[in-house]
């Protein structure tokens, strides 16, 4: 084994690929070669480094220096200054104070423990960090009901938005004695501003696969499907690659680890409808039908894909499972807060200094996430609002910033954790425009199956458009809340039921913005 004095981690994700990361990586290799440094400095490809809008980024170890927005022209300078002379290139460095202040040392990461550190395309690196130990334990040392029990004990709740206890969900399906059951991964991440699942899959695809395997064993499914957005090209490619590797290593397929357990994992590519993130619409789409939601009950856990019992879990939920099984429920429950254990992955966006990806304990205050991990508001502006939980989320004003980010605490503010997107807006943001954009999104994504949602969204859209164009009346605001309440109470699925949160929170917390358009 070779020893290197420096390691360069280069973040390869969908956005860095668009910034030409491959070409830059090539010139970096050539430049190191030219300076006879190839034997001293190693380049490792990994998933996202966790910073957004930073083009091509690399982190250099052991120095823990991150360079962002690197172009091809910067390469000779980085090599000669940093690696030959030992002087960091300050103009390209990410704020060192910022990166060291908060826990970027991965100490309390569960889902993202390997992201940005290992090569996602190499199963051996995953195994080398303890990967698939949970799977082996689940298959060789545990009975299915023990796995369900362990996950129940851990307190893990679904990360797709609703927060339903995962172990409980599994316990509905596990005891059913039928020929075929399925595990389906909801990787149809469609909530605006949310791409944590993409980064989890890009950065550590085996983590998800291991979670799928354990879930399948727990509920007795011999087939699992990952229903993934068609736009997630790199995820699809990395998952396909990871699945192939898992088969090659005997981790998937027939008689895994010499047991009598068989499992196949398939990818199903979605076509980009938001409603297909709703589990029953997802199943309809997976079966080849129009992606319209089904009535519940029967719930998918009893009658799902092709009428068979089907457990549908979010990517992040399943990515928590390997560590729970490997380290035990108590270890996991030590993260987070009472009733809401573990960690949560967020995407922080908008008017913050450092938009990015972070994983923190459940219950971490929103202010800490925005000021700490997001680096606070950029350009010296004032905070105005945060849209928490995606388009189906809540507009929170400054006075609510100290809310703890977990399912229960947010409920007290009539807010939701939702998808884990935190969109931060500064003083220049106008809530009329923001709400208009949210409603336009829902209007576009309503499937049309039920009239409360199809008509309701259109009426809301006409009302907000009138307000935006200075033609609104104050009573329109009451009508909008009344309509979205009606939609909440009578829409067929969660899509139409979701409007109430953004509409009500925007109008109630930022009424002055709306009245200003009526003068």
């Amino acid at each position, binding site marked *: 084994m070779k020893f290197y004095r420096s390691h360069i981690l280069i973040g390869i994700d969908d956005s860095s690929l668009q910034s030409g990361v491959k070409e830059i990586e090539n010139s970096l290799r050539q430049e190191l070669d030219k300076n006879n440094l190839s034997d001293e400095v190693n380049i490792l490809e990994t998933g996202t480094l966790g910073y957004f809008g930073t083009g091509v980024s690399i982190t250099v170890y052991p120095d823990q220096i991150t360079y962002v927005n690197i172009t091809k022209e910067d390469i000779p300078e980085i090599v000669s200054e940093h690696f030959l002379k030992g002087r960091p290139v300050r103009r390209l460095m990410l704020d060192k104070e910022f990166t060291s202040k908060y826990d970027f040392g991965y100490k309390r990461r569960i889902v993202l423990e390997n992201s940005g550190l290992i090569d996602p395309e190499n199963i051996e690196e995953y195994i080398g960090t303890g990967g698939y130990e949970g799977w082996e334990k689940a298959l060789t040392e545990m009975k299915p009901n023990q796995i369900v029990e362990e996950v129940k004990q851990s307190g893990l709740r679904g990360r797709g938005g609703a927060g339903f206890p995962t172990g409980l969900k599994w316990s509905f399906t596990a005891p059913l004695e039928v020929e075929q059951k399925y595990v389906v991964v909801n990787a149809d991440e469609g909530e605006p501003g949310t791409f944590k699942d993409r980064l989890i899959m890009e950065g550590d695809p085996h983590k998800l696969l291991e979670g799928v395997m354990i879930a399948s064993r727990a509920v007795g499914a011999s087939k699992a499907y990952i229903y993934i957005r068609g736009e997630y090209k790199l995820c699809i490619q990395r998952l396909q690659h990871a699945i192939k590797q898992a088969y090659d290593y005997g981790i998937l397929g027939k008689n895994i680890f010499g047991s009598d357990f068989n499992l196949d994992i398939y990818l199903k590519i979605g076509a980009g409808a938001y409603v297909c993130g709703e589990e029953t619409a997802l199943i309809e789409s997976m079966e080849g039908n129009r992606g319209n939601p089904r*009535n519940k009950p029967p719930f998918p856990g009893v009658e799902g894909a092709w009428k068979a019992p089907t457990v549908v879990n979010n990517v992040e939920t399943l990515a928590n499972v390997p560590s729970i099984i490997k380290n035990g429920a108590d270890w996991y429950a030590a993260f987070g807060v009472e009733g809401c254990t573990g960690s949560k992955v967020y995407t922080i966006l908008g008017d913050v200094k450092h938009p990015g990806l972070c994983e923190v304990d459940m219950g971490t205050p929103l202010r800490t996430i925005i000021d700490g991990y997001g680096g606070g508001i950029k350009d010296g502006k004032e905070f105005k609002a945060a849209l928490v939980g995606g388009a189906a989320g809540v507009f929170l004003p400054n006075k609510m910033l100290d809310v703890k980010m977990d399912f229960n605490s947010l409920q007290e503010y009539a807010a939701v954790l939702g998808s884990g997107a935190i969109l931060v807006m500064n003083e220049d943001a106008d809530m009329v425009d923001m709400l208009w954009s949210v409603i336009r999104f829902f209007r576009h994504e*309503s499937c049309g199956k039920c009239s409360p949602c199809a*008509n309701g969204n*259109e009426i809301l859209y006409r009302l907000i458009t009138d307000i935006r164009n200075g033609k609104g009346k104050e009573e329109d605001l009451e009508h909008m809340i*009344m309509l979205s309440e009606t939609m909440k109470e009578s829409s067929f699925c969660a899509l139409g*039921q979701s409007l109430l949160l953004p509409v009500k929170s925007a109008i109630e917390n930022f009424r002055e913005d709306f009245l200003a358009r009526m003068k």
Partner: protein
Amino acid sequence: MANNKMIKLWIDNKEVEVPEGTTILSAAQKADIHIPTLCYHPDLEPSANCGVCVVEIEGQPVPKRSCCTPVWEGMKVTSNSVKLRHLRKTLVEMVLSNHDVVCPTCNQNNKCELQDLAYLLGVDDSRLPKILEKKPIDDAGFSIVRDPNKCISCGRCITVCQQVQTVNALTINGRGFDGTVTTPFDKGMSESPCVNCGQCVVYCPVGALREKSNTEEVWDALLDDDKYVVVQEAPAIRATLGEEFGMDPEKVTVGKMYAALRKLGFDRVFDTNFSADLTIMEEGTELITRLKEGGKLPLITSCSPGWIKFMETYFPGIAENVSTCKSPQQMFGALVKTYFAEKEDLDPAKIVSVSIMPCTAKKFEANRPEMKDSGYQDVDYVLTTREFVKMIKEAGIDFKNLPEEKADDLMGAYTGAGTIFGATGGVMEAAVRTAYYVLTGREMDNLNVEAVRGMKGVKEASLTIPTKDLGEVSLNVAVAHGLGNARKLMEKVVSGEKEYHFIEVMACPGGCVGGGGQPFGSSLADRARRGMSLYKEDSDLPLRCSHQNPAVNKAYESYLGEPNSEKAHKLLHTYYFQRSTANGQTQKEVTHKH
């Protein structure tokens, strides 16, 4: 659910016990508790679209739709509350915001389920903006007009077209507010696989679907002194008119029907039942010939134009099995402008031949290019039951108190066999009566063929006939009504899984009494009741077999010769095409004119 487990629940504090799997709505109906609905229809699988039927359930965060939520043990349901009333009103208000509210001129005025609900709930439709975006009306076909501006996307038409009829001419195109009920490729009904059965029209709650009306043309003809207007009425009409005029729905109204037609100004009032009997003579002879000469079997009936277009579209391979007989309407039409014109010394060019049918497909059938064997279009205008009722009302006729009249001679007499054509199984039963007589030389002891009556989707019977020259013949027959049932039956016939001698198919559930031209909202229960009233009329009539019809026998003696004669073939028989499953257009002839 297969088990008989009973579930106990409380609706508005009233204890109800129902089998597992029952919906809250059905449980409420059982407990005599009314829950308002809009998109729901008892015959169809709930689309769960409108949300009007929501109820509150203890422990549930939001109200649930009662139409599709199964009951559970100990469930506590509130069917009405201040909150639920407000919710329902707002929902209807939202629907009206996207609905072309033109009630006075709407075809479904006073029969509109949305109108009723909005009125009863006291909906104020002035609060919200109108979101309706006008779309063009699809009226290029002969049978059915679609007005998307009235459509509330309840999904009933799609359910009936896809699930019940398996025609698949209607679907949702687009999403959300932009989602519209339309035909494949958005080409319009006339360029779709639509077979014009009109079940979508019957089930539409709001007038977004209607027949292509011909009342104006008929009024023009009636008010034109130069025209000689002749009318025929299908068997099912007499079983339906009573219910539209507040009369005993279980009785047929033949005499008043004739009287009303004379009052409207028709010059001659005949009856399609006459040509139903004639059809039996032709089709019965065709069956016996095929049986004796080893022709193609099973023979399949051809009275239902919806079925014929369905067969041409989805089963053109069995066209040779389908009887070459025209439908009673078209036989009648061909005779009016030939036989009748000759006997009465009338210029056929001046005759306007009108038919009153429970059917929308009959409009398409009358306009088929090949239906001109008299030298003219055999049937000029087809009116549905609904159009006929409207004309009676427009003319201010007090239908209920009209004195009974008789049909005119020549093509007016009929037997019980003709009248039961209107109910599923009726053509089969009528054919069996006459075939038995022809094959054995005597009448059946009991004319009722109970095995082919009733609302079961596919009915089968094996009838033993002691024939004169073939010995004892066992006749295997089947009856299907509703095209979904017809499809299932035909798949079995094509695959060879089932072998029959004779099959009756009616496109509409219940047969013609459930036709697409019948009153809006006609349920399966209504259809069954109308069928029963036809069987009642049959049993009360002195003549119950087609071969006993004196007017039919006279037509053969004085004009046609004998059944299946050359002249009969020219006027009373037809041929079929293969049609595209994508757009319903003819592709080639699959049988030929004799």
